[in-house]
């Protein structure tokens, strides 16, 4: 339980750790002005509001706003309340520190995503090649991806060009909450990949979640065009324009 004097700290910690959080504050009214409730996905974390009816009314509204992801001012039980909802910035997780990954990383950053690049091959995953990503991780996808705790704010792009790396990355990503899993490769490569994934015990429903060939169909040829098509597809999924697999 967060004690009354560190509610804001609890809020700041969750913001910093990329966890969804809401802070409700009574901003006007005849009582309890300045008092707060801190709410995260697990429920009420702590609070300084004292009146039980006010607590339950504010809590109910705050939980709803947290799940919708929007901040709002409203009146309840004769007081004005402001609920500030903070959702983590979405992140693109790029498995495969290949040539196209650099363009993709730059575009993703420009669009407001955090960027993680990972590869098991140390000659690929170098800070010189990826100077501006938030995280550059050297390691095998089956170890790296579970450590990243892929959540509903994670968009996974698998582009190593090597089935030994692509397939374990896909298995890990498909077993997570990530709303987008895309894989680079021709339809022949993808057909072979599906066979391998089935043998690893991946369900048909999960296989159908893979966006392949990756990206919106804009006739992409160059690495920059492929990066653009991929990010366009990710933004469309994020904004719920298109749902399900490609």
């Amino acid at each position, binding site marked *: 339980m967060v004690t009354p*004097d*560190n*509610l*804001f*700290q609890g809020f*700041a910690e969750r*913001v*910093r750790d990329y966890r969804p959080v809401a802070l409700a*504050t009574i*901003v*006007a009214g005849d009582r309890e*002005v*300045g008092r707060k409730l801190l709410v995260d996905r697990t429920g009420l974390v702590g609070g300084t509001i004292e009146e039980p009816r006010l607590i339950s009314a504010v809590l109910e509204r705050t939980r709803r706003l947290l799940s919708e992801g929007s*901040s*709002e*001012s409203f009146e309840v039980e004769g007081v*004005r309340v*402001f609920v*500030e909802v*903070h959702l983590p910035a979405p992140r693109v997780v790029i498995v495969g520190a290949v040539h196209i990954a650099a363009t993709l990383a730059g575009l993703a950053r420009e669009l407001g995503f955090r960027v993680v690049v990972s590869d098991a091959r140390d000659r690929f995953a170098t800070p010189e090649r990826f100077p501006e990503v938030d995280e550059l991780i050297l390691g095998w996808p089956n170890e790296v991806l579970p450590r990243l705790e892929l959540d509903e704010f994670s968009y996974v792009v698998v582009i190593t060009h090597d089935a030994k790396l692509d397939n374990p990355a896909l298995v890990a990503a498909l077993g997570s909450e990530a709303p987008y899993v895309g894989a680079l490769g021709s339809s022949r490569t993808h057909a072979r990949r599906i066979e391998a994934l089935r043998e690893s015990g991946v369900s048909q429903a999960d296989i159908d979640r893979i966006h392949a060939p990756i990206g919106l169909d804009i006739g992409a040829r160059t690495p920059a065009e492929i990066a653009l098509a991929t990010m366009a597809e990710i933004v469309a999924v994020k904004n719920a324009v298109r749902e399900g697999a490609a």
Partner: protein
Amino acid sequence: MNDILPTLEHWRAAGEKIALATVVRTVGSSPRGIGAKMAVTASEKMVGSVSGGCVEGAVSEEALEVLWTGRPKLLTFGVDDAEAWAVGLSCGGTIEVFVEPLDW
């Protein structure tokens, strides 16, 4: 929030008394959305922005008073508001800013 957090933590470590101002409602056009923040210390340091420059001066004065009294306060700035004109609200629209002492 993310833009001012490192500074807030730095101030907190230095033992500064901090007032936090947050945009809690906007009507019409406003340069910064709800949740935009600025913070002011008792030693008159400032970080962040609630309006892109229109009302920061007035907010920082109110923030010092909030630190003095310890009582949070809801401020309203709008184009029809004589006080807002006085501080030069060129942005249009109305914003409400909640100012509170930051106890953490």
